[in-house]
């Protein structure tokens, strides 16, 4: 993976990247004609139907970790890694039953908006804004890093090229058209990513069938170990697996770029139907990474050692030599590039929305920016910061950072949303203490893991996957402190709960 693929392979990759970039910008420009108001920019004026929105949610959600990372992890570590795609999908079921419709009915633009509307406290709002930016940047950083790695290995460009290209395309699209044009782009990119992974997989399966369906060349014992969907190490492995399940099942609802999408639905009913369709679209997509891992196990077991993200990019060339393989590889490079673009765009929108509301459109020395100008300023800061960090080359591995983002989301926004929607007794003090306990606990655990040598003790295991204890901790602190400060339950709580849970068919004063 040090040099690029030879000749035609690199050419196919470059063609694919250029095509994806041009299509993205063209669709963005088309959407731009429709974007006029602040509401267009932030929530596409809440007029996106379930089908379009579900494709957009899925297109935005399927990042490089899903497109490239999952198959590589499956090949290297076996069935225990199946919990990533399963958890990334099941997270939407949890989101559907606990938050989808009420969140939409809250009528807020962003997560801090929701927190402020529910609890009526500026302090809670600021804490949430800080967390959205933190989680957003944590999730953006690996997207830019991954873009650098992919571009370098696929077309042989220098390492800085990927982050710069992705950052520029995202910025142009987001600052120009906001949510309205991005919705169209992301819906398109879901189908692009599915095709880019499905067609090569189908070709590879045909080749495999033609070769007489060869089985796994490894020993039976080795294969059995590879098929256990459980981390190694007895009870510790069990804990690690369950903690991963907790982080992905609960963390999905707390990711800022996922949540902001739900405000673009016209009503609560549409929000539910969107989520149902998202489950279908994600389920179809996630059938594919195991196919790549299984075929790699048969045709190229050596790939497991050469770095996990390269598997999907290299396998077609190894199985189908010549021009055919190059074309398939080109498709995958294009799909991976679409993955970087769509996820970073969604995150940039979410972070920019929060930054513009809480930083850039506040009065400063007597002047203030307009809504759209503030959104654009927010987008620049949202993209440039993590892209800059990615360019310096520092930071942990791609999978580690994404895992950390999920754990922090599961330990902060998940308890806030669930308690805020279903429990009248939540108080501002309770919410802030819970957010701090979960946020500080999960991120401190991750920092300790990153900067101290690994060991086999329970303390190391608990810190490596914190979600199984940090999410319940945040929930308990929120409930405990709220009960202790019972007299500060906001006066408007009952009215707001009515608004969150009453179907739109019943006419209410929704002020």
């Amino acid at each position, binding site marked *: 993976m040090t040099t690029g693929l030879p000749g035609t392979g690199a050419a196919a990759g470059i063609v694919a990247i250029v095509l994806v970039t041009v299509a993205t910008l063209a669709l963005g420009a088309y959407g731009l004609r429709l974007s006029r108001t602040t509401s267009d920019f932030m929530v596409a004026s809440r*007029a996106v139907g379930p089908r379009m929105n579900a494709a957009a949610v899925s297109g935005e959600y399927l990042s490089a970790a899903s497109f490239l990372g999952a198959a590589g992890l499956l090949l290297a570590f076996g*069935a225990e890694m*199946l*919990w990533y*795609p*399963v958890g990334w*999908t*099941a997270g*939407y*079921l*949890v989101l*559907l*039953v*606990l938050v989808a*419709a009420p969140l939409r009915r809250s009528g807020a633009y962003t997560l801090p908006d929701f927190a402020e509307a529910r609890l009526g406290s500026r302090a809670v709002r600021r804490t949430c804004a800080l967390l959205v930016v933190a989680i957003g940047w944590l999730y953006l950083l690996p997207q830019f890093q991954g873009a650098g790695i992919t571009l370098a290995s696929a077309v042989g460009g220098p390492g800085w090229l990927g982050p710069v290209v992705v950052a520029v395309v995202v910025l142009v699209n987001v600052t120009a058209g906001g949510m309205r044009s991005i919705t169209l782009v992301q819906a398109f990119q879901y189908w692009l990513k599915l095709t880019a992974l499905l067609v090569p997989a189908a070709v590879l399966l045909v080749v495999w069938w033609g070769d007489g*369906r060869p*089985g*796994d060349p490894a020993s*039976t014992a080795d*294969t*059995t170990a590879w*098929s*256990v*969907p*459980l981390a190694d190490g*007895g009870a510790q*492995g*069990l804990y690690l*697996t*369950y903690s991963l*399940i907790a982080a992905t099942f609960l963390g999905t609802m707390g990711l800022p770029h996922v949540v902001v999408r739900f405000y673009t639905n*016209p009503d609560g*009913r549409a929000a*539910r*139907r969107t*989520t*149902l369709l998202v*489950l*279908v679209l*994600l*389920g*179809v997509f*996630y*059938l594919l990474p*195991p196919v790549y891992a*299984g075929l790699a196990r048969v045709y190229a077991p050596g790939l497991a050692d050469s770095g996990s993200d390269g598997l999907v990019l290299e396998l077609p060339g190894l199985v189908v030599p010549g021009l055919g393989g190059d074309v398939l590889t080109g498709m995958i490079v294009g799909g991976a590039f679409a993955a970087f673009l769509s996820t970073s765009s969604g995150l940039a929108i979410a972070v920019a929305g929060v930054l513009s509301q809480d930083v850039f459109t506040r009065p400063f020395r007597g002047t203030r920016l307009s809504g759209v100008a503030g959104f654009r300023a927010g987008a620049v800061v949202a993209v440039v910061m993590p892209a800059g960090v990615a360019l310096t080359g520092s930071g942990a591995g791609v999978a580690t950072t994404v895992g950390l983002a999920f754990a922090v989301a599961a330990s902060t926004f998940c308890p806030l949303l669930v308690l805020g929607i*279903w429990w009248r007794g939540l108080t501002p003090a309770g919410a802030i203490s819970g957010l701090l306990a979960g946020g500080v606990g999960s991120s401190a655990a991750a920092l300790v893991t990153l900067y101290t040598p690994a060991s086999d003790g329970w303390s190391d295991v608990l810190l490596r996957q914190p979600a199984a204890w940090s999410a319940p901790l945040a929930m308990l602190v929120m409930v405990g402190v709220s009960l202790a400060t019972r007299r500060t339950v906001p006066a408007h709580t*009952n*009215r707001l*709960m*009515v608004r969150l*849970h*009453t*179907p*739109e*068919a*019943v*006419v*209410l*004063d929704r002020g």
Partner: protein
Amino acid sequence: MADPGPRPRVRVTGPPRRRPPVARAGEVDQDTRLGGLYVGSLLREQLWLAVRTLTVLVLVVGSLPLVLHLAPDLAALRVGPFPVAWLVLGGATYPVLVLLAWRYVRRAERNEAAFAELMDEVER
């Protein structure tokens, strides 16, 4: 009609997006005890539905690691060249998730329709 050629862009307004009012909810709006009871019962019903759905999720999908921890031999089972664990977790889980979600959406909408009907009757 003759071809009008390139037309200037005009702003067209459509019908209102809101659905026509089906039910009014004075009791709920005015925050009376009766209104509180109505919404409280809807909220409890929806929460109970969510808890039931999540319980099924935990029992069906979430129990897999524990089952394999207690009975590791299951991992050696295979159908043709494919290990059963891969087929179950990598394939069969997704339809189960979609089925659970579909069932939830249907029942949640039914609860809401019943609530809207009740509000309608109360107002009359």
